[in-house]
């Protein structure tokens, strides 16, 4: 890793943006949380376990975790039309896959746990912020979990790996351009989600995964602290 690489916002290559986390932001929900990386702000709310409708989707073996990811129309500079899109449908499923390994869903056969993730303000890494918020909301709802997950996006700008890419970096055009690698880890170090867009060698990808592992440890601490101090106790 070249030491002289300067990130546009002055961060070190392995430095995350300032993180903020809050638990209990939606009083109506059974569990809720806010998580932010700099200007990227996500909130998540959990409803359930509850009766699963439509009935034909029930699973008698174990419960169902149902995540929805949605961006507010004004969360980005160029307004997006409200409502689901192909992109948000995919990220919803990715969020489910990232969380399922730690949620003890087998305790709730025939039932559903709804996790709603909304992006209030976007500056890249929205799915990672969403997953972090969702994990906290599930824990806040008291859903039995084996572990908590933490998510971060690793970027490759030209040849340089960096942690927690922002929008400016995501659009990197110099040299080899930008490669975006969102990764989710459990606190015990299991990988539950990885995606990649761009171009990278397998050697460097291994480095990226190591970087993500270290970064998620820091994220975990922020999540843990927030869970210890929820905003409101009563529902």
């Amino acid at each position: 890793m070249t030491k002289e690489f300067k990130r546009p916002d002055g961060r070190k290559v392995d430095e995350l943006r300032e993180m903020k986390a809050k638990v209990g932001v939606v009083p109506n929900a059974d569990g809720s949380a806010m998580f932010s990386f700099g200007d990227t702000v996500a909130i998540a709310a959990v409803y359930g376990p509850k009766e699963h409708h439509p009935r034909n989707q029930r699973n008698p073996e174990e419960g169902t975790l149902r995540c929805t990811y949605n961006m507010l129309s004004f969360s980005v500079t160029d307004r997006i039309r409200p409502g689901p899109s192909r992109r948000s449908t995919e990220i919803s499923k990715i969020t489910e896959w990232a969380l399922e390994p730690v949620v003890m869903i087998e305790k709730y056969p025939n039932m559903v746990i709804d996790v709603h993730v909304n992006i209030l303000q976007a500056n890249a890494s929205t799915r990672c912020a969403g997953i972090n918020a969702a994990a906290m909301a599930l824990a806040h709802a008291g859903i039995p979990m084996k572990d908590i997950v933490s998510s971060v996006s690793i970027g490759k700008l030209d040849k340089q790996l960096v942690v927690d890419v922002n929008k400016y970096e995501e659009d990197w055009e110099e040299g080899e351009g930008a490669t975006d690698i969102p990764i989710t880890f459990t606190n015990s170090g299991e990988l539950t989600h990885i995606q990649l867009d761009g171009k990278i060698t397998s050697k460097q990808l291994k480095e990226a995964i190591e970087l993500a592992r270290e970064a998620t440890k820091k994220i975990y601490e922020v999540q843990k602290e927030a869970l210890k101090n929820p905003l409101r106790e009563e529902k």
Partner: protein
Amino acid sequence: MMTSNLTGERIKKYLSEGKRFDNRKLEEFREISIETGVSKNAEGSARVKLGKTEVLVGIKMNVSEPYSDSPDKGNMMVTAELLPLSSPRFENGPPKFPAIELGRVIDRGIRESKFIDFEKLCIKKGEKVWTVFIDIYSINDDGNLLDAAGLGAIAALKNAKIPKYDEKNEKVLFGELSKDSIPLAKEIPISLTIHKVGDSLIVDPTREEEDISETRVTIGSSNGVISSMQKGNSKSLSVEEMSKILDLTEKIEKEISKKIERFFK
């Protein structure tokens, strides 16, 4: 999940004695909090809380063609989404009636009061005008989303700055805001909803109160002049009741205007 009959009867009994579960008077609002500039990528934004009810409103703008019947006027579009995040009652899927009505009632409240000077939003007559998008999202529904959204829309509009426009290439430079605000009237239009629960008239209902409300009237007015109105739900009102509602609205509009003044300095 709906409020039970038992609770409903109790609420009505309390109201008939002039009392409410949360100790408010019948004509009293919950604590109002308005925060503006809450979303960096929006042209303007506001977070409004009425007690536990919370909405987020954002303004986005874009350049488009004017409608043929108003070639020299800008456009406005109000969209409301009742996020499933904000209540166990809201589901994913295309907007249902409550969300559509919410958007339309807020739309008329602003449009009919002439709060926005649409003529000043014209760039080139018949070809290019600004469209103002007002997007409303519920974050926590504890009743009276209508009035919260109304306040939010006003606050977000006042907070907004028009994006920079590259006239040569006819392109909007999203993310770069000019110093110009949206041209707005001085008088703030306030949208207020009066509910009839049992024989009592109340304002700012909680979720439970709203559930058992038999009929409601939303009135948009500024400085005593009414510019929009909508009666909701199927119960009828007598003429005396309607006139009571109008008197009440006038009184409360003044109170609310005073209360929110400090947020709009």
